[in-house]
């Protein structure tokens, strides 16, 4: 009797003890410190995922906003990587707390949108037409906006101009992957840190973002809608090219941090976010070149990076205040300043006409590469965007190709099975809310 009573209690507790989220409840703000001069304003908590050079730029924008008006105080709280922010927002909601604004990545905003954690933005945006249409449109579902573009990027091809010169190569990015491959032997004759310079480094973690573009360049795709296509010819060809670069030709390798290796002169080229341009240029002790990511049978690169979402479980006052900050970020001079400080794409059309940015691009053409390349950019295949952990399933597959010389056809057949299961998890919500 006593034991049965205990078991009954144990079964009932979880149900009674945890009220779950109501989509329209108002949650408290995460704690922080408000300087005395801003104490009377509406406080907005902004969870950011930018550190280092880019984090300082976020701080700069926020400070400028706080000085520009008298009603709203934005407190930026750095929370770690894109994944960290997503985890912490989810954890906060469970604890009935909500930041007002959060940076959400290309593969995390969808899960908050699908599960009604984001505030629809149409009613808050002063003028949606100011945004770069492609980047803005990626957050529009059935006519409603769910985030605004902020730190948006594409991969660009970084190359070591000094090493290219030493190898007798032209001072430009290769036009195709085959061309880069043909340059490999010349680059290998250049010595770097006592060993032959390698041609290309693949990322150990998160390399599936760059690989999304590579798959398109070789004529394939990750998925059509949520129907997985990664085991088909184009994607396998892209994987096979990379496998042969690593294992047959020994020209490429898997790196824990390709950008660190590149900045240290260990590898001649990498595909990396344009958002790393400023920090790369300052770290490298050689002349950094930038160009379009090569094509092969097609061109096409994936957009990525972070947007800003507004949480739904906050008060109307906080929503209005948060919207004022979004409007501030959409002013051309602020969007241009962010691009100048980081290398991210200008998310506002008129930012390109701001004299400081025009001058920078004239002096340092690298800053214009991603902007010019934007014409080739497109939104990623739905399975990577909407399938939770699809990115991890793909990049752990790539690790097997890079590390173990595994056959791409075999690896991608396994990855496809995993992606099918991942797609099945979100298919109902995806078909209901997106299609």
């Amino acid at each position, binding site marked *: 009797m006593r034991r049965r009573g205990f078991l009954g209690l144990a079964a009932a507790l979880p149900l009674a003890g945890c009220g779950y989220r109501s989509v329209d409840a108002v949650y408290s703000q995460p704690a922080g410190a408000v300087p005395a001069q801003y104490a009377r304003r509406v406080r907005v908590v902004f969870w950011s995922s930018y550190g280092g050079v880019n984090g300082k730029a976020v701080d700069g924008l926020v400070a400028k906003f706080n000085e520009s008006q008298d009603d709203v105080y934005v407190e930026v709280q750095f929370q770690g990587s894109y994944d960290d922010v997503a985890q912490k927002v989810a954890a906060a909601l469970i604890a009935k707390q909500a930041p007002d604004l959060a940076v959400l990545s290309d593969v995390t905003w969808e899960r908050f949108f699908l599960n009604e954690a984001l505030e629809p933005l149409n009613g808050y945006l002063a003028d949606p037409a100011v945004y770069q249409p492609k980047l803005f449109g990626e957050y529009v579902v059935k006519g409603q906006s769910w985030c605004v573009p902020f730190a948006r990027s594409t991969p660009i091809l970084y190359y070591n101009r000094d090493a290219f010169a030493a190898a007798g190569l032209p001072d430009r990015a290769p036009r195709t992957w085959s061309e880069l491959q043909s340059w490999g032997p010349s680059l290998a004759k250049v010595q770097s840190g006592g060993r032959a310079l390698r041609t290309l480094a693949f990322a150990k973690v998160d390399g599936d973002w760059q690989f999304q573009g590579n798959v398109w360049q070789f004529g394939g795709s990750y998925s059509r809608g949520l129907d997985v296509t990664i085991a088909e010819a184009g994607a396998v060809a892209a994987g096979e090219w990379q496998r042969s670069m690593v294992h047959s030709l020994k020209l490429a390798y898997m790196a824990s941090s390709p950008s660190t290796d590149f900045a240290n002169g260990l590898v001649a080229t990498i595909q990396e976010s344009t958002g790393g341009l400023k920090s790369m240029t300052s770290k490298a002790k050689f002349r950094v070149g930038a160009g379009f990511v090569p094509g092969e049978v097609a061109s096409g690169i994936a957009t990525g990076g972070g947007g800003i979402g507004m949480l739904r479980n906050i008060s109307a006052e906080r929503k209005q205040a948060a919207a004022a900050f979004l409007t501030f970020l959409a002013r051309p001079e602020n969007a241009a300043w962010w691009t100048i400080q980081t290398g991210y794409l200008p998310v506002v059309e008129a930012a390109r006409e701001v004299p400081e940015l025009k001058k920078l691009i004239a002096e340092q053409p690298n800053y214009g590469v991603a902007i010019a390349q934007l014409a080739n950019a497109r939104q990623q295949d739905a399975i990577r965007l909407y399938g939770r952990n699809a990115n991890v399933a793909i990049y752990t597959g790539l690790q097997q190709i890079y*590390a173990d010389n595994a056959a791409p056809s075999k690896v991608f057949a396994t990855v496809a099975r995993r992606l099918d299961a991942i797609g099945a998890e979100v298919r109902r919500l995806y078909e209901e809310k997106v299609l």
Partner: protein
Amino acid sequence: MQENPVGLRSRRRREYWLFAALVAPNLLVIAVFAYWPIVYNAFLSLTDWNMIAARPAFVGLANYGRTLTDPAFHRTLWVTVVFTGLIVAGSLVIGLALAFLFNLPLKGRGAVRTIAFAPHVLSGAAVATIWLFIFDPGYGLLRGPDWMNNSDWALPGLVIVYLWKNAGFAALIYLAGLQGLPKELDEAAVMDGASTWRRFHAIKLPLLAPITFFLLITTVIGTFQAFDVIAVMTGGGPGDATTTLSWAIYNEGFQAFNAGRAATLSIIMFVILLVVTTVQARVLERRVHYR
């Protein structure tokens, strides 16, 4: 039982209330921070929940069915068993050897003991970062294979790091055991002409059995839960080469946001540890000689 005199019974009752009052604070803390999460976790394992949806959906035992038949889970279990087996065996053997060494009357052994024990108290993330340098294929101290970027070497690499971190602890515990052994037995054995080897395996090792038992259980549990070094050094990769049960729980829960399946993996881990500990206790109970 005979009826108790009234005075004794009321004293018993007073003692009972005192007992209850004294253990209540601890019981409460354990209930809130240990039992409640276990109960809640068991509940979550019966649901499908992405941690953002307003509420979990009850799915019965579906998560268990799916997990237990998933080839990726079988692979994870195998990696966990190999990883745990190597670390437990290595820690005990190296720890015992070091303990004998430290027990010798050598100069400077105090300092050496401290050095051997120090890695145990370092933070796992810091240890992992140091070992990434040591294993670096370009300039590392132990460069040879590309340890962390090769599926055949990543797991052995992790085992080396955990042994370096844990063996000093095992040594310290063994040393305490060695120093507590009754000297008469060993002296008597010497008088009887027993060889060093015989004194070791017929006298000291059996007498150290309670220590070995303690280390066996704590190391198995600790290794099953190992996370920090894996997170920093391999992230479960390359591929799934170092995906242990604890990493799989993190990946399923905090990267994929599948709370239900992460909870299922946790419950499976809990049951495995419960069974392992019980079996160890039962088997060793008969062999361990407590003095």
